Each structure stands twice: as structure tokens, then as C-alpha cells.
């Protein structure tokens, strides 16, 4: 029997290795898999390359992973926000690398990674510093820049419902990068609010088919980043 359920976040992230590339879901706090990220902090893998839209807030979740010195390089579109101090500090000190990617290009690179498309052309960033050094080519009279897929060893994603086969639904704007990150990682690890029986999700409304998911862990009452930040929580 196929059973992708694992007992807890620690078990789910146990085999992340030093140097791995990890996609981390979320746009701001919506969809941020905080419990999985905290488990990854406990787990200890270093020298990670992390792709995520932002760089976290306060001293929890992704910001805490960065603060713990575990991330060698961030790939993201928007590495600052009102409550993000960790990344800017390390970046200014030259202690963390940044690959800045337009948000749509980041999404499409991840989707391409999951879809077996090694490169594609986009009009985004043409003529800007973010296109420097990249191949530019005209199609029908308009210039486009070639971008490469983004694939990863792991993805950490937060979803809503899941079953033992890995089928998922999401909650509102927590969907964001989750479905494409599951596609692009060799091992997609998903925390869900609730695990249901196979068939408990209508086949018409499955957002991520289980084929894209390797492990699923129930986190019934996931923390909200903004609440932790407001409480001044620091992890670990």
C-alpha cells in the first residue's frame, strides 16, 4: 500500500543533506510551512540553497533558518519586508548570496523544472540588469530572455487537506507557490492541516495530484508567522 504519511515534521525532513537545494512555499506568511522549516533548523543541514519568494519575518520560520546560518544562497523575488531584518543584515555583511529573480520568472522556472522544460523565453526583465549575461532572442519582433528551469532536492510546502496518496488542496492565498514547488522537487514534503481518506477529496478539486508529493505530515494547528512575530518568538 502506498502511504506517504510520516509521523512528524522531524521525520519528514530527516534526510535533507548539506548543500541541498530546497524550495520553500509561501508568499509572506500565507502558505509558509513553519513547522517543517523549524524541523529543518533542528535537523541541522547546512550550506543550503533556498528558493522562496521572500526571506521570512522576525526570528521564526524562514528568517530563523537564515539566522541560524544554514542558508548559503537565497533565490527569491522580494527579499525584504517590514519585519525582515535577518536577511538584509547577512546580505550587507556578504554572508549570504542572493539570486534575485522576477516573481513571474521564479514561478515559471519552478513550473518548468516540474514539467521537464529545461529553458524557456520570457519578456520579463529584458533590458534590465536582471537580464545581464543571459541570452536574448527575438520572436516576432520582440526581445525575450532565456531562463532556465529550477529544480530542487526538496520542497517544503503547506497545504490544507491531504490523503495518504499525497493528493492536496490548499487554503486561499496559501496556495501560491505550493503546487509548482511540489512538481519541481525530487522530494516534496507537505504539511497539511488535516489528513483525509483517499476519496475524501473530490477528484475534480484536487489541486496537487499525489504523484508530485513524496511525504505528507499532519500539523493540525499550524502557527501563523505574524502571530509568532507579534509575540516576539525566536526559534529555536
Amino acid at each position, binding site marked *: 500500500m502506498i502511504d506517504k504519511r510520516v509521523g512528524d515534521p522531524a521525520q519528514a525532513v530527516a534526510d535533507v543533506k548539506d548543500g541541498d537545494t530546497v524550495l520553500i512555499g509561501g508568499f509572506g506568511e500565507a502558505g509558509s510551512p513553519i513547522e517543517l522549516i523549524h524541523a529543518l533548523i533542528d535537523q541541522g543541514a547546512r550550506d543550503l540553497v533556498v528558493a522562496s519568494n521572500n526571506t521570512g519575518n522576525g526570528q521564526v520560520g524562514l528568517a530563523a533558518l537564515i539566522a541560524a546560518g544554514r542558508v548559503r544562497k537565497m533565490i527569491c523575488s*522580494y*527579499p525584504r519586508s517590514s519585519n525582515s531584518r535577518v536577511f538584509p543584515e547577512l546580505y550587507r555583511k556578504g554572508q549570504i548570496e542572493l539570486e534575485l*529573480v522576477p516573481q513571474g520568472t521564479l514561478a515559471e522556472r519552478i513550473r518548468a523544472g516540474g514539467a521537464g522544460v529545461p529553458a524557456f523565453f520570457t519578456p520579463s526583465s529584458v533590458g534590465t540588469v536582471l537580464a545581464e549575461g543571459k541570452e536574448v532572442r527575438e520572436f516576432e519582433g520582440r526581445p525575450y530572455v532565456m531562463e532556465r528551469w529550477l529544480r530542487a532536492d526538496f520542497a517544503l510546502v503547506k497545504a490544507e487537506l491531504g490523503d495518504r496518496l499525497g493528493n492536496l488542496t490548499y487554503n486561499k*492565498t496559501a496556495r501560491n507557490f505550493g503546487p509548482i514547488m511540489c512538481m519541481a522537487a525530487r522530494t516534496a514534503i507537505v504539511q497539511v492541516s488535516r489528513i483525509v481518506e483517499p476519496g475524501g477529496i473530490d477528484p475534480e478539486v484536487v489541486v496537487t495530484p499525489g504523484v508530485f508529493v513524496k511525504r505528507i505530515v499532519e500539523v493540525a494547528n499550524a502557527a501563523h508567522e505574524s502571530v509568532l512575530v507579534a509575540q516576539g518568538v525566536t526559534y529555536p
Partner: protein
Amino acid sequence: MTAELIHAGLTRDEMARRAARDIPDGAYVNLGIGIPELVAAHIPPGREVIYHTENGVMGFGPPPPEGEEDPELINAGKKPITLLPGASFFHHADSFAMIRGGHIDFCILGAMQVARNGDLANWSTGAPGAIPAVGGAMDLVAGAGRIVVITEHCAKDGSPKLVDACTYPLTGRGVVARVFTDLAVVDVTSEGFVLREIAPGVDLDTVRRLTGAPLLAAAGIKTIEP
């Protein structure tokens, strides 16, 4: 003196109201963070406009009443939103397929600089130590049907934001169609900046003086109805 003149211009809400008049009925619209967000409150009666946010919603509504915020129902500015009937959720690749694929009709952004050829700079000063953060701006200017800018006519230090050529890193080349400022409505044309409308109590010479590039005067400049 500069400060005084700017004071004579439109408020942020008046700028938003003027920009809102340009949005046609039935348009799919993406509003940038800042003054552009104010536009939604000023759509003329009788028009139905559908708002897109990059993080995966089409058809969102005004912010929720205090206490009813949902941390997993937010817009691209990470602020709480509500849904209107007929809204939908989708993932990030689909959201940017809408943008890149030309399905968003109208996009209103803020700006640090707009050049007379339509170049836009709105994401980075390029200063050492600044944390560069681009978000979805480069995708929006590459893909949305019509790109307009709302911005104060001058920066806080009094320097013009409408310039001959951008000195900040570009968001996109030749992308801006129109600029709404506190002083004027300025089109970007093949001839450069053309003044179409002017704020009440502001004269052409003043606008020209505060513009960092030649400013042609359209035939029949109108006064902006605030």
C-alpha cells in the same frame, strides 16, 4: 518653493480618483503597492472592474473589517483582503501566465523614475547596501495591456521623477503609457512627454520646471477635476 508648489497639487486620493477614471468597464486590473492601491475606492459608478493580485486571486474586494482578517487571504502587498462573488484562487505560475500572457488589461504602478521614452525604474536605487527586491514588477510591465504610473511629480528631495533617462536600474524599457502625478497627467508618446491635463491652480511653466525632460503641451490642455 518646490514644497509649496507641490502642496498646490492633488492629494493622493485625488490622484487615485483621476487615474480610476481611465479604467474601462470590465477591465482586469492589477494595482501596485502604495498610491495605486487607493484607485479601487474611486472607480466611477456603473463600472465593474476585476482585481488581480499576483499571489493568486482574481476578483478580490476591499480590506476586511478589523478583527476579520485571515492571514491566508492576502494581496501582493501582504495585506488582508476579502473576496467578491466570482473570485478564484490559482497558483503562482498560473497567476503570472495571466500577467505575462497579456490577460491583465490595466496595471497601475508606482515609480521612482519614468523616462520620456517610457522606461520605468521602480524597484531599486541601485545604492550600495540597498537590498534589491523586484517582486512582480518586471513581469507586470512586460505583460499587462496598459501600464500607467501614479507618483508624486517630484521625489522627496525635490528632484524630478519624470526624466530624460532613468538613472536608477530599470524595471522595463518603453513600458509606461501615461503618468498621473499630483500636478499633471502626462502621456508618453513617440515625441516624448506630452502634458494632457493639469491640476487646478498649477500652471504649465511650473510643471515644466519640475519635469526633468522636455514636456510638450497637448492641444487643449484640460484641468483635472479632482
